[in-house]
C-alpha cells in the first residue's frame, strides 16, 4: 500500500501548480516541471484527427521538464470542463490542449474565465476579441495540403473519377473538397470528384458504405475528411483503389495504395508553443498558418506516384513554401454554374470569405444540402 507516497506526490503537485500558475501568468516562464494536459474527443490511436494531436503530445513528452497527461474519448459536454478541472486540480496542469472543435464554446471559455492564470490552447481557430486572453485557438490551412493531394490524385486516376468521403457540409470540409478538386483539375482538367457526406464525424459503417459505393461507380482514387480515415483507407485499398490520406500518415495501413496525404504537423507546432512560453513570449490568441508555417504538411509520396506527378506537386508545394500562393483564384464557379469568385479576385489563405464557404466548385459531383 503506497497511498502515503501518492498523496504526498499530489500535495507536491498541487503546490507546483500554484507556483506555476503565478509564474505563467506573471512572467510566462516555465517552472521546473510543467504539466500539460491533452484532451481528445476520440481515441488517440484512431489513425486520424486525435492521433495527430497525440503525436504532437508525444513530441512534447520528449522535451525535458515537461509532464504530459492525456485523456481520450471526452465528450463535448460539461464532462470536458470537469476533465480540464481534474487535470488542473489533481494533476497540476498549467497548460491545456482541449483539442476538439466543439470544446471551445462554452466549455473552454468557461474554464479560461475560471482559471485566468492558466493557459488554454484550443484547436479550431475560434478565438475572437471578446474571449478571455488566456484562451487561444490555433488551426491550420490544411486545404493547401489537400490541393497537393489533389494534384497527385489527378495524375494517378485512370478513370478520371475521384471520390471524397466527407462528414458534414460545413465550410471547413467544403474548403478541403474544393481545394482537392481544384488541385486535381490542374493535373487533369476533366477530373471530377464525387462526394458523399456521412452526416457525422465518426460513422465507420457509413464511411465503409460510401467508400464501396464510390468505387462501384468507377472512382479509383479516394480521400476523405472524417475523424478516422482508417475505414476508408483500408476498404479502398482492399478494393484495389488508390488513396490520399488525411489528418496523419496512413501509409502503414495501405503501403501500396497510399499516394500522399494532407497531414497536421502538430509535432512541430506544440514544441514551438512551449518554447514561446518558456521564452516569456505570449502565444498569439489566434494562431493560424499553412504549409509555409509548418502547421500542415504533405505525406511522403507512395511508390505508385508517377515522376510527372511528383514534379508538378513539388513545384506547387515550393510555391506555397516561398510565396503566398493562392488556391481560390477567380474565376471560380460552383457546380451549379454560378460564379462564386469573380475573375480577378484572389481569395488568399486568410480571406474571411473562405470561412463561410457554402458551395462545391465546378467538377465536384454532390450537393451541400
Amino acid at each position, binding site marked *: 500500500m503506497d497511498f502515503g507516497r501518492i498523496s504526498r506526490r499530489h500535495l507536491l503537485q498541487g503546490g507546483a501548480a500554484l507556483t506555476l500558475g503565478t509564474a505563467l501568468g506573471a512572467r510566462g516562464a516555465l517552472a521546473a516541471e510543467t504539466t500539460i494536459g491533452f484532451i481528445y474527443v476520440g481515441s488517440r490511436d484512431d489513425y486520424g484527427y486525435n492521433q495527430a494531436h497525440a503525436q504532437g503530445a508525444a513530441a512534447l513528452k520528449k522535451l525535458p521538464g515537461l509532464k504530459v497527461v492525456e485523456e481520450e474519448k471526452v465528450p463535448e459536454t460539461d464532462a470536458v470542463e470537469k476533465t480540464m*478541472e481534474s487535470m488542473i486540480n*489533481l494533476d497540476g496542469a498549467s497548460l491545456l490542449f482541449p483539442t476538439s472543435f466543439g470544446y471551445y464554446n462554452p466549455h473552454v471559455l468557461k474554464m479560461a474565465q475560471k482559471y485566468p492564470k492558466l493557459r488554454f490552447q484550443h484547436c479550431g481557430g475560434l478565438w475572437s476579441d471578446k474571449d478571455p486572453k488566456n484562451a487561444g485557438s490555433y488551426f491550420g490551412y490544411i486545404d493547401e495540403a489537400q490541393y497537393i493531394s489533389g494534384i497527385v490524385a489527378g495524375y494517378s486516376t485512370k478513370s478520371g473519377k475521384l471520390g471524397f468521403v466527407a462528414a458534414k457540409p*460545413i465550410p471547413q470540409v467544403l474548403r478541403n473538397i474544393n481545394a482537392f478538386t481544384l488541385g486535381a483539375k490542374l493535373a487533369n482538367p476533366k477530373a471530377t470528384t464525387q462526394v458523399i457526406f456521412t452526416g457525422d464525424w465518426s460513422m465507420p459503417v457509413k464511411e465503409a458504405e460510401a467508400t464501396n459505393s464510390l468505387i462501384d461507380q468507377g472512382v479509383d482514387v479516394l480521400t476523405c475528411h472524417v475523424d478516422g480515415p482508417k475505414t476508408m483507407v483500408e476498404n479502398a485499398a482492399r478494393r484495389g483503389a488508390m488513396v490520399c490520406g488525411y489528418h496523419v500518415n496512413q501509409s502503414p495501413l495501405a503501403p501500396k495504395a497510399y499516394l500522399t496525404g494532407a497531414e497536421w504537423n502538430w509535432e512541430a507546432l506544440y514544441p514551438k508553443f512551449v518554447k514561446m512560453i518558456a521564452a516569456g513570449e505570449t502565444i498569439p490568441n489566434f494562431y493560424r498558418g499553412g504549409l509555409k508555417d509548418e502547421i500542415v504538411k504533405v505525406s511522403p509520396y507512395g511508390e505508385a506516384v508517377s515522376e510527372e506527378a511528383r514534379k508538378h506537386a513539388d513545384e506547387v508545394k515550393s510555391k506555397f513554401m516561398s510565396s503566398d500562393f493562392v488556391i481560390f483564384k477567380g474565376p471560380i464557379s460552383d457546380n451549379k454554374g454560378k460564379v462564386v469568385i469573380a475573375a480577378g479576385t484572389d481569395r488568399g489563405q486568410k480571406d474571411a470569405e473562405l470561412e463561410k464557404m457554402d458551395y462545391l466548385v465546378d467538377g465536384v459531383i454532390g450537393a451541400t444540402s
Partner: protein
Amino acid sequence: MTTDTADSAAAAAIAPAADPSFLQRHGQAIEYVLIPGAALAGALVVFGIFVALFGKNPLDLYFYMYYGAFGTWFSWQNTLARAAPLILTALCTALPAQLGMVIIGGEGALLIGALAATSAALALPWAPPLAVQFAMVIAGIIGGGLWIMLAGALRQYRGVNETISSLLLVYIALAILNHLVEGPMRDPASLNKPSTREIGAANMIGTIPGTDVHWGLVFGLVAAAAAYILIYHTTFGFAARVAGGNIRAARIVGLSVGKLIMTICFLAGGAAGLAGMIEVAAVQGRTNANLAAGYGFTGILVAFLARQNPLAVIPVAILLGGISASGGLLQRRLGLPDASVLVLQGIIFVFVLASDALYGRIGFLKGKG
C-alpha cells in the same frame, strides 16, 4: 439446525438488536442493501484482477477510483455533476418498468426535450429570465413526454414492442435534431459547428451556490423522490404496479391500463426531456449535436442497477457518475484506455443482474424462528 444458529449469530453481528421478528420485518430491506453491495464488491474484485493482468497494481486502481470520484471536494463535485443528468434519464426507464415495460429510448426524449426547451427560450426573447426558464422546463417535459408517449401509444394501440420502438425513436430524434440544427434553426454564425442561436447568458440556470454543480442535480433529486412517492404511496402508483404485475388481472378489476401506460410514459419521457432542458440551460446554452452524449443510454444502466426503484436511482447514478469521473484519472495515472471504464460498467452490470437470483434465498435473512 446448526446452520441456523450460525446464521442468526452472523445476523446478530450485523444488527445487535437482531431477533427473528426484527429480521422478519427488515430482512427485505437488508437484502436490498447487502446484495447489490456484495455484487459491486465482487465486480470490483474481478475488475482488479483484469487490471492486474495488464500489469497494473489493483491497489493503485482502487485508490485512484476513490480519489477521482470521492477523494476531494472537487472530485465530489465532478461526480455529482456527472450524476445529475443520469438520475433523470434513469427515471425514463425506471417508471415504465413499473408497468412491466422496457423503455430504452431516454436519449431520444432528452434530445427532443432539449430542442423544445431551446425553441421555447428562443421564442421568448423579451420575457424575464424566470419566465423563460419556466417555459423551458414545461417545454422540455412536454417534448420528451410526448416522445415516449409515442412509444407507449404504439404498444397500447398497435401492439408494437416498446423496447424496439423507443430505441428506434432515438435515431429519429437525432435525425430531427441534426436537420433542425443544420437547417431551419441554424445560427448563421455557427459556421463549422452547426448550432441553434444561444438562449442567452441571463437565461442560464447556473450552479448551486458554493459548488460547481448545476441545478440539474436538484431537479433530479426532486424528480426521483416524486417518482418514488407516486409509485409507492399513491393509488395511481398502486394501480400501475398491479398492472405491471398482471395486466389481465388489472383489466378485470377495472383499471384503465391504457391511461396508465400513456401517463407513465409521459412522465418517463418528461424526466428525460427535463434532462435535455437542463443540458441546454445549465451547460451548452444552445442545441447542437453535443447533446447526444449518451446520457440516455447510461440512464438505462442506472435504472437496471437500481432495480427500477426511483429512489435507488439516486445512489446508483452517483456511483456511475463517480466511475466516469475517476475514469479520466485511471487513463492519466495508470495509462488504462478509456474502454476500461466500459469494461468495469459491464462487469458491474453482469454481477448485479446475476445477483438478482439471490433475493429471498439468503437463509439468515428470512428470520426463521
